[in-house]
């Protein structure tokens, strides 16, 4: 096993709006080794993006605030770094790419400018060297005629090409970790596969770790080594991708799997098939956060919050009925109609 690169421990993030406080992330923990990739899966509002954004402390504050936990990167706590030090990590050792490449590139600067800016922020190189490096990067991500493209504005690129530019910017300083926040969601289906393949290819070539935020389990199956499933700001299941693929344990994960099958590929709201909606995070949730929507819920689920436990080595789940002693029987029709048992 290679050395540990990132360790997120009991992360807590809150969003305040007036007198309302949303506990967007509530005690998330996970580890990531060098050259490893992890997928964070969940519906929108599950806290997966907030978790990822918190790593580089890019949560807009106000209203957001990291209220607890630690994030160790190569042994240093990112949450305790000075603003100046975390800046040196951003875009240099840890990079991020975002969901919508049409809004995440600045429309009024040339692509070359935005690439070189990143390079020159972290590397003490001349303009000419930065330009050379920038062209190399564009070439690396598969943009044809990179020299010409340098002088073009983002709106002159297609969606897929823009995401390639974003990747080029993110990788320009050879980061050890790339955080990809739904990198393919806003793209056409055909382009999605291209971008994923590119990322996989680059990961192998550049020896980096990836955190892949997505609501699309298919993306995780294809690109990740391990994964965590998030619900209502908590981790409900985590483990090796293979293990979860073969034997998913949490009823929520089952729901995700079912909805993935029933929904057509083009739909962006692929996860909406689980009846009901996630709980409001602005007040204390008693019991299991998924209980309201869980077809298997029983009295205890409304009383006690289940802890994350490991019924199998390296495969954890937060459910009262998925322990080493007892297991639920998965029903095929559990999510078919609105029959979430509530008695």
């Amino acid at each position, binding site marked *: 096993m290679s050395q540990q690169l990132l360790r997120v421990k009991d992360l807590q993030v809150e969003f305040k709006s007036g007198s309302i406080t949303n506990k967007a992330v509530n005690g998330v923990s996970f580890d990531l080794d060098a050259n490893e990739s992890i997928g964070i899966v969940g519906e929108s509002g599950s806290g997966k993006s907030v978790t990822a954004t918190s790593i580089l402390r890019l949560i807009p504050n106000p209203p957001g605030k990291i209220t607890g936990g630690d994030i160790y990167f190569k042994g240093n706590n990112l949450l305790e770094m000075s603003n100046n030090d975390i800046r040196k990590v951003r875009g240099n050792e840890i990079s991020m790419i975002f969901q919508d490449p049409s809004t995440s590139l600045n429309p009024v600067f040339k692509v070359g400018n935005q690439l070189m*800016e990143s390079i020159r922020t972290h590397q003490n190189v001349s303009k000419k060297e930065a330009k050379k490096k920038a062209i190399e990067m564009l070439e690396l991500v598969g943009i044809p005629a990179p020299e010409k493209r340098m002088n073009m504005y983002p709106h002159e690129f297609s969606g897929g090409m823009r995401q390639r530019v974003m990747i080029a910017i993110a990788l320009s300083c050879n980061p050890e970790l790339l955080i990809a926040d739904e990198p393919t969601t806003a793209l056409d289906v055909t382009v999605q596969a291209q971008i994923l393949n590119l990322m996989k290819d680059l990961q192998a070539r550049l020896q980096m770790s990836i955190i892949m935020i997505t609501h699309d389990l298919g993306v995780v199956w294809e690109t990740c080594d391990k994964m965590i499933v998030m619900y209502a700001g908590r981790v409900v299941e985590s483990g090796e991708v293979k293990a979860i693929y073969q034997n998913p344990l949490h009823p929520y994960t089952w729901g995700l799997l079912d909805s993935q099958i029933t929904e057509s590929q083009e739909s962006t709201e692929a996860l909406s098939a689980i009846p009901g909606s996630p709980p409001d995070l602005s007040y204390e949730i008693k019991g299991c956060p998924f209980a309201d929507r869980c077809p298997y819920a029983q009295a205890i689920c409304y009383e006690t919050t289940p802890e994350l436990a490991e019924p199998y080595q390296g495969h954890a789940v937060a459910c009262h009925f998925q322990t080493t002693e007892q297991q639920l029987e998965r029903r095929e029709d559990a999510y078919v109609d609105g029959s979430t048992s509530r008695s």
Partner: protein
Amino acid sequence: MRGFLFKRIIQLIPTLFIVAVIVFFITRMLPGNPAAVMLGPQASAEDIAAYSDKLGLNDPMYQQFFDYLLNLVTLDFGNSLSYNQPIVDLIMERFPNTILLAVSALILAVIVGVPAGIIAARKQNTLIDYSVTTLSLIGVSMPIFWLGVMLVLYFSVNLGWLPATGMGSLEDGFWDFISHLILPSIALATIPTSQFARIIRSSMLETISQDYVKTARSKGLKEFMVINKHAFKNALTPLITVMGLQFSALLGGAVLTETIFSWPGMGLLIIDAIEKRDFVVVQSTVIFVAVIYVVINLIVDILYKVVNPKVNLDSNNGGGK
């Protein structure tokens, strides 16, 4: 770009033509014989008749209009009776002074209003923000001629720090030049400063929350660069629109400011000429100002293209106003 420029310049022609038509008809609305009005009550009947002839008032209307247009195109505004010199010279003498005042005010407005707006947006809902918002609201409501009078009252009459009227000359030293410029510039800059602060505040609030600003932060840029490069340049587009509008408003506002401070610009010339009943001067100066205004609007359109590459100027409207 060249095609766009050509197109926009061609589009100016009908606008300028209509400007000329409007001024022609307004001046022809003048009750009584303009020659008689201009020569004053002491003038003899022969004088009036002779002057009417000279002004072409006895020609048929279409002839008058044609001559008038021809004179405009050849920049031949004729001679001023009361100033006893060619009107073109009169305007060209005053024009740089007005531009000096307007540009000073515009620079002042930019260096005060823009940072104020940026800071207010960065510190949203703090005391600084409330101060900027309140002051700028008072600023846009300001009768600048009153502000001008108050500035004179405090800084010239009471404190004696700055001259109340007139324009300094560089020959009398730099301070003489600057000191005369300060009060009129402040008076004239008040409204644009407030407008800029308001528009920059609201557009910065919009851009600060955009994805590309998050990207800029995620690249590890310094906060100063994030705000002043990435957010600010996107907030510039609305500023340029307002700037164009404000600059032309400055030309109008200059009439009042120049009157208060006896600043020898075109505004004072117009008011002076009205008092002297020299309508030919009024008419020529007004047309001149209108032409300048139209040209400024064209420049604003071009600036758009420079600032915002997304604006497609080859399409019809260019997003000018």
